[in-house]
């Protein structure tokens, strides 16, 4: 709760500080605000603050872990994007404030206790994203991305709302606790409740971009400005996953019956469609989009397993995934190519050894190569589900194998020889972010052990 208040004030202050036309002040305000948020969250971990208490929000340990992770990634993305944001002095404050507002929505999704708050959180998370997708007004592709994202997104929101209405009709309450009690007290399952849950599930699968609701993904990811793509792939996905995990675990007592079959089918489809489409991509951001669809497929396995560690495993997965995306987006900002072709990264690792090294680490981590953090994420998810769903895990392992092919292709492009390649300049902020993500990629595994 305190975190949301601090973040909201930070957003507002940076909006008004931007009127001085000094981007560096906006950056400082935003960074200080986000850091204070993180500090407040860590204080909350040891001594919960209870000075404001209202219905709707409840902080537990997972709220804090997820919140801190989302805050960390937002911090990094603001750092990465600063070089682009500061070019348009008139809008620097707007961009940064909108990203921070979106983070507020994510924090609501980590801590809601009723469907009211859940829906508002989801909207606060997505509406700024619709705007940010189209923030590059000179580029037609960016406007197209915003339009597509907005239309499909609002349709999905409509479906979700209809689902919530059905659930309310069946259970008669909005509170997660009362909902789970009402379901437990039910003698025979109600069709109305099931239809409501399926509609909510459809809304969720759309938000995270799972097959067959993935069509918006590649276009939106490749059309949006790079930072926004990164933010969508990490913070928005983390928040959507956590929000729905909370809803299904606390409100619906976990997924039962034919939902499990639906989720298994969706998970398998998502892995295959994402992977097979990624094989043929020639643009880095489209590759990231399809690979992120695949990763959603792996993460869905998490939702199938019913035990108390599920939120921790899901967190590990997205923690690992996020660092890779941060590194890749930074590299794409350094290369700064309009067309975003993978060929443009030829000999990148030779001309820029450090950035190239981190890029290769990030790709290896996405592929799940052992010492890196991505391996731990995959390992925890797969090992938790292997007893219940052995076939599903085998399919997931096959897919991990396919994925290595296209990650290796990018790595080979990056280390290949090219005499004409020019050295790209790495700004200090990008160097800082690259070092942070390098540490994250290499040492993240220990952090996950500590948390678990």
């Amino acid at each position: 709760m305190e975190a949301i208040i601090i973040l909201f004030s930070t957003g507002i202050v940076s909006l008004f500080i931007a009127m001085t036309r000094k981007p560096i002040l906006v950056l400082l305000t935003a960074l200080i605000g986000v850091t204070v948020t993180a500090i407040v969250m860590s204080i909350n971990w040891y001594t919960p603050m209870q000075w404001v208490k209202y219905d709707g929000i409840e902080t537990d340990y997972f709220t804090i872990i997820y919140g801190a992770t989302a805050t960390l990634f937002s911090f990094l993305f603001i750092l990465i994007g600063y070089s682009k944001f500061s070019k348009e002095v008139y809008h620097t404050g707007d961009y940064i404030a909108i990203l921070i507002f979106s983070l507020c929505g994510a924090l609501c999704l980590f801590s809601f206790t009723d469907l009211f708050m859940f829906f508002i959180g989801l909207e606060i998370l997505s509406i700024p994203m619709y705007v940010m997708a189209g923030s590059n007004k000179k580029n037609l592709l960016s406007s197209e991305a915003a339009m597509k994202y907005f239309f499909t997104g609002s349709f999905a929101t409509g479906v979700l709302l209809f689902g919530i209405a059905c659930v309310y009709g069946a259970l008669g309450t909005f509170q997660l606790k009362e909902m789970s009690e009402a379901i437990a007290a039910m003698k025979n399952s109600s069709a109305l409740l099931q239809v409501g849950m399926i509609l909510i599930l459809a809304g969720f699968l759309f938000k995270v971009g799972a097959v067959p609701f993935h069509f918006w993904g590649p276009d939106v990811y490749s059309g949006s400005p790079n930072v926004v793509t990164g933010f969508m792939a990490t913070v928005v996905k983390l928040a959507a996953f956590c929000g729905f995990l909370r809803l299904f675990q606390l409100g619906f007592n976990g997924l039962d019956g034919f939902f499990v079959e639906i989720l298994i089918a969706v998970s398998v489809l998502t892995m295959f469609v994402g992977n097979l489409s990624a094989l043929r991509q020639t643009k880095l951001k489209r590759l990231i989009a399809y690979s992120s669809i695949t990763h959603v497929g792996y993460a869905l396995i998490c939702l199938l397993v019913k035990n108390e560690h599920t939120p921790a495993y899901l967190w590990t997965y997205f923690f690992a995934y996020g660092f890779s995306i941060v590194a890749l987006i930074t590299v794409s900002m350094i290369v700064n190519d309009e067309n975003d072709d993978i060929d443009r990264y030829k000999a990148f690792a030779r001309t820029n050894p450090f950035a190239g090294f981190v890029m290769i680490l990030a790709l290896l981590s996405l592929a799940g190569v052992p010492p890196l953090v991505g391996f731990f994420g995959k390992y925890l998810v797969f090992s938790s589900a292997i007893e219940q769903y052995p076939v599903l895990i085998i399919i997931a392992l096959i897919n991990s194998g396919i994925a290595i092919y296209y990650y290796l292709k990018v790595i080979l492009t990056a280390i290949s020889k090219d005499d004409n390649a020019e050295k790209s300049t790495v700004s200090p902020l990008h160097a800082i972010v690259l070092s942070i993500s390098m540490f994250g990629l290499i040492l993240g595994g220990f952090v996950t052990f500590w948390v678990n």
Partner: protein
Amino acid sequence: MTNSSYSDYFPILIQAGVALGFVLAVLWVTHFLGPRLKSKVKNSNWECGIESDGNARFPVSIRYFMAAILFVLFDVEVIFFYPYAVNFKELELEGLYAVILFVAFFLTGFFYVLKKGALEWEK
């Protein structure tokens, strides 16, 4: 008013009926009042001058849209005052704080919009 039933809406229904009926009746009656001349020239869009050409609908400026969308946002804000006003006494200070906070947020937004010059009618 603590109780409501459907019969309470009859005055509204009658009012709506009278309003609609009046408009329709006036429109209908005007056809019979006053002299009417009909000829081909009289019925054409332009009695004299250049022949009409093209579509009457043309794209309007996005500036209207800006004003309209901000109007919608503030419209929604104002609506929340209604349930507050009805409960003004019972909610006491806590309700007042809640509303003041809400209005303060909106004023910040309004101030931002003004500062950005979004409502200026630029040249």
